[in-house]
């Protein structure tokens, strides 16, 4: 057993931290609520290669693992970066048989978003083209986006109606499920970064002793995220359980960290100018994306009842 990042992954985390702290911030997330573009934005993410981390090298990506991506995604989450690396990772799984589309994903020349029925889709605002599952087939096409007033503008949420489509693959149900699990894992990794930062904000502010023991949840979440990200490539049979567990735990952990962060700050934490609410917004939105906690817990229960606790 060896449950630790390797030196390359630690170096990648340090590099990602440098990139994201220099290119996105909670202040950017606040400006995005007033209509400014999401930071660092697709072009910058493509430029540093983060949209292609899991895209094969032949298609212009890095050909790396989802675990490698999760390490980067944690740093993205810490500064509330957008668009989500989960969107790119999900699209990379769906487009695996289409090198030309994969190349356009990795180099940022096409903005993909992935739809879950008619519900709000991550990074739909500003996307050029959409991937969807219709009658078991994977389809691709342009669409009309409708959106509400964003709670967390960095997520680019919108509902999409496809205006035309072409079929990329029939009988794509299994690939679709795997792609969705991958997106759950990467989103959970972003939530891990956000939760860690929310705790840090609270701790830095706390001038009096308090039972602010929330990193307990953050470290537990880290374990589930790493397990799930590892399982994507190394133990696919464990992925559905691991992804649902990580997703459910991420929702709860980030929400608690963000709520507590505000509480610890007192009145200042409730102001628009303070960063606390931006993490709170991310928490309130992410907990509902790619299935809410009730759905994830039911998925876990179903897998456990079916004998899924193999390891």
């Amino acid at each position: 057993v060896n449950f630790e990042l390797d030196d390359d992954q630690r170096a990648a985390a340090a590099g990602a931290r440098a990139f994201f702290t220099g290119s996105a911030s909670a202040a950017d997330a606040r400006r995005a609520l007033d209509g400014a573009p999401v930071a660092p934005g697709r072009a910058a993410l493509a430029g540093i290669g983060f949209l292609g981390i899991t895209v094969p090298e032949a298609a212009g990506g890095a050909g790396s693992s989802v675990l490698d991506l999760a390490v980067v995604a944690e740093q993205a989450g810490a500064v509330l970066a957008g668009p989500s690396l989960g969107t790119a990772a999900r699209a990379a799984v769906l487009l695996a048989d289409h090198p030309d589309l994969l190349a356009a994903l990795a180099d940022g020349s096409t903005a993909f978003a992935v739809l879950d029925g008619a519900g709000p889709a991550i990074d739909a605002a500003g996307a050029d083209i959409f991937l969807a599952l219709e009658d078991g087939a994977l389809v691709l096409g342009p669409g009309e986006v409708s959106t509400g007033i964003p709670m967390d503008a960095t997520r680019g949420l919108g509902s999409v109606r496809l205006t035309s489509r072409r079929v990329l693959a029939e009988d794509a149900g299994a690939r679709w499920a795997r792609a969705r699990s991958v997106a759950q894992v990467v989103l959970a990794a972003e939530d891990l970064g956000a939760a860690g930062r929310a705790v840090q904000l609270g701790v830095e502010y706390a001038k009096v002793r308090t039972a602010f023991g929330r990193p307990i949840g953050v470290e537990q979440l880290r374990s589930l995220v790493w397990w799930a990200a590892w399982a994507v490539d190394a133990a696919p049979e464990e992925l559905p359980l691991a992804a649902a567990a990580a997703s459910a735990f991420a929702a709860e952990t980030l929400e608690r960290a963000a709520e507590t962060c505000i509480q610890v700050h007192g009145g200042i934490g409730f102001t628009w100018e303070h960063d606390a609410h931006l993490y709170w917004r991310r928490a309130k939105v992410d907990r509902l994306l790619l299935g809410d906690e009730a759905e994830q817990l039911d998925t876990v229960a179903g897998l456990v009842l079916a004998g899924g606790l193999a390891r």
Partner: protein
Amino acid sequence: MDFDDTPDEAAYRTRVRALLAEHAADLVHLDAGEEASDAGHQEPALRRTQRVLAEAGLIGVSWAREHGGQGGTPAQQAIVDQELTRARVPTLINHIGLGMCGPTVVAHGTPEQHERYLARLLRAEDVWCQLFSEPASGSDLAALRTTAVREGDEWVVNGQKVWTTLAHVADHGILLTRTDGNRPKHAGLTMFIVDMHAPGVTVRPLKQLGGQSDFNEVFFDDVHIPDSDRLGEPGEGWRVALTTLLNERVAVGGRGNDLGLSIESLAGLAAERVPQLPAERQVLARQALGRAAVAALANRYTGYRRYTAISRGGLPGPEAGAGKLAGTAAARLVADAGVRLLGDDAVYSRGPDGDDGRWQRNQAWLPGIAIAGGTNEVLRNIIGERVLGLPPEPREDKTAPFNAGSRS
């Protein structure tokens, strides 16, 4: 990152399994439905079980050879732990000695003490207990009042300890005492090894919430301890005790092990009971099962990470307290989901129609586990101060002489 055994680990596991099969006739095994924590009543058989395991090289696996151990790796120790569970061998009778007292003697003992005590501890020739808490000092351990006064080459001990697991069968204990009341409370403490059969030691079992008697109160009336059984320097008792407490928090949940009934046990019960529930109750039961499973998995995988860190030479630090907090929280979710699945039997300690009562026993056991080794509140304080670096609250009692009376 890899969760599978390395070739070396797999070979070792095979050898451990073979040894456990070879010696099966000489080992106590749990009955169906019996849990590891239920077996404390068969003392002689449990002592023999540990001795047989020790002779087979399966006790003190990661202890140094000079201390009577096997000089193995933490990974090998974890494999033995897993295989003992798999073979349904109950909790080792000397688990307090192996998990807490032994590592403390190793860290702070003299070569003579190592020689005298460690090999016998490993073979359960001596069972050990840990004499820390007192009626007036549990969470505030450093406020303890049991005194040790030096008389020539001996120390004379008077006072009372409480919540002492295994004291009723123990041969030795590590005993934290106050030797200088004129110094601040943490600075006036000294640790000893005490012979539990010495004149003046009286053990009285306490009946627990669940009806069992695993722990005790222990009285010391003019008990004489030779200075050669002092563990660490006079006044250094707090530092010695911290070694014990860190090991305890790792032992209680910090390894990511299940506390009480496992999530697999809950899965088995749920597979049987959930389909019998009305549809709207199934939805709720599945939510509870899912929540418990997620918490238990988070705890288990966090244990793997801590274990990886330790196997690379890291030491258990104050963050082990977080593992204990999370472990007990997960165990409570598992226990509650299990009890609720019992339906009408849940209102009995054992239901009338074939219920074995293990979920109710589990429920009644967990409140104690949540206290042992530091309550949740104490652990949160430790995490706040030592992991997060939050400023401690002003505490006069840390600097004023203990006898001056600030004993809150």
